[in-house]
C-alpha cells in the first residue's frame, strides 16, 4: 500500500491508502475523492481526471504518456507544467506519500 494526499482547490487535504499497480485516478475514484471525474474510465479520452503533481513529486511521477499531452490540451482548467492525467500515473512504492493538487474544474 502507498499513501496519496489529494489537495482540493480550497486547500483541504484527504489522504488515502492505495494499492501499488493502481493508477492515481483509480485510487481517487474508489475512495470517492471529489474533483476526479474520470468519465472515460482511464482510456485517455476525456481529460476529466486532470491533476497537478506537487512540485516535490514531479521527478518521481515521470514523463507524460504518449498521447497524454494532446488530451491535456482539452482539460477544462488551466494547463500547467505539472499537469497530468491521473489515469496515466501508475502507483509504485516510490510514490508512497505522493501529493497531487486538484484543479478548480474538470468538465
Amino acid at each position: 500500500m502507498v499513501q496519496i494526499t489529494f489537495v482540493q482547490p480550497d486547500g483541504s487535504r484527504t489522504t488515502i491508502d492505495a494499492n501499488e499497480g493502481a493508477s492515481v485516478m483509480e485510487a481517487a475514484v474508489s475512495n470517492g475523492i471529489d474533483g476526479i471525474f474520470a468519465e472515460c474510465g482511464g482510456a485517455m479520452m476525456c481529460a476529466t481526471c486532470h491533476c497537478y503533481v506537487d512540485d516535490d513529486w514531479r521527478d518521481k511521477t515521470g514523463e507524460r504518456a504518449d498521447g497524454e499531452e494532446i488530451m491535456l490540451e482539452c482539460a477544462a482548467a488551466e494547463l500547467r507544467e505539472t499537469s497530468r492525467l491521473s489515469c496515466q500515473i501508475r502507483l509504485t512504492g516510490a510514490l508512497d506519500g505522493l501529493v497531487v493538487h486538484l484543479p478548480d474544474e474538470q468538465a
Partner: protein
Amino acid sequence: MAVAPVDETLTLAELTRDPYPIYKRMRAETPIVQVPAANRIFLTKAKHTKMVKDDPELYSSDDPVTPMRRAFLAHTLMRKDGEEHRRERMAMQPAFSPKVIKTDWADLYRKIAAEYLDRLPRGETVDLFTGLCGPVAARILAHILGLDEVSDADMQRWSQVLIDGAGNFGFADEPFARSDAANAEMDAVFDSLIPRHMAEPNNSAFSVMLNAKDPIPRSQIYANIKIAIGGGINEPRDALATIIYGLLTNPDQLEEVKRQEAWADAFEEGVRWVAPIQASSRRATRDLQIDGIDIPEGVTLMTIQASANRDEDLYEDGEAFNVFRKKAPHQAFGSGPHHCAGAHISRRTVGEIMLPMLFERFPGIKLDRPEDVVWSGFGFRGPLNLPVKLT
C-alpha cells in the same frame, strides 16, 4: 457456467414505447439476458456496462456486420478500436475542447440562442421540439464542424438519414438509397468548403482536420464529419427537450434551480434520467463470463446505459427526475475509449447557455398538458414533441 436467460416475448416495439419498466424488471430478475428480438445479450447493470465499455480488448466496437458501414459508405471511428480509433478521434478533438469553446464559440452560441429564442411566439402554444431544440442543435453543430453554410433543415435531414441507415439492421434497400443520396450531397458540400478552410484555418473540426501537420486521409475526414452530424444533433436536441420537460413537470425543482443557478446539475440529471443515447453494442472477442454467465466469442452485447443510469446500486429512486439527488456518476456519455467526444460541448451549449437563457426569457413558460408529450425510442430516446405556452 450458465447460459444467459432468454426473454422470448420482448419486442423492439415495447422497448421503443417505454423501456424503463422493462429494464427495472431485468435489473432485479435477469440483469444479463438474451433478447432475440434485438439479437443481442442485454447488460442492464451499471457495473457491467461500464466494465464492458472500459475494456476494448475483450469487448470490441468493431462489428463486422454493422449497417453503419453501409450507411456511411465508410468504416468510421465509432466502430474502430485502439490506435486507429485514437488517431482519427484526436484529429478532430481539439475543435471540441473546453478552451476552444470558451475562446471561439461561447459568444456565438449565445448569439444563436438569443436569435432562435427571438423567433418564438409569446402567448400561444408552440412546439419547442421542432421550434427550438432541433434547429438550435443543428445550427451550433454546423459552426463547430465548419459547415456554416449548411441550413438547419439540411443538417437535421442528413443526421436523421444517417441514423436511419445506421439502424437499418434488416438491410432494407430504401433507407440505404436515402443515405446514399445524402452522402452524395454531403460530399459535394464538403468538397466546396475545402478551399475556404485551407485559406482561412480556424478551430472548426473540418479545418482542424484539413490543416493538421499529419492529416488523416480525406475519406476519413469526411467520415468523421458525417459521424459528428449523425451523432451531434439528436443528442443535444433530446437532452434539451428532456431537461425542459423534467423541470416543467417539477416546478418546485425549477424554482430551486433558478434560485441556485443549478443549471449544470439540471443538465446532468436530465441526461441521467433519460439518456439520449440509450444503448450501445460491443462484440465479445473471446469466450468470456460476466458474473458467472457465459458470453460466447462473437456474440454482440448491448450495454444499456439507460438502465445503468437508473441502477438501484447507485441511485435511490432513480426512476424520478430529481436535480438535487445525491451525486453519482452516470453513463449518459458512455465510458472508455468511445466516451462521447461532444460531452463538453453539450454541457456548455445546453447546460450553460440554452437552459438559463430559455427560462430567463420566458419566466412564465408552461407545459399545460404533460400527457400530450410523446416519448419514443430504444437506441435513441427523447420526447417527439414539447407543446408549451411561452410568456
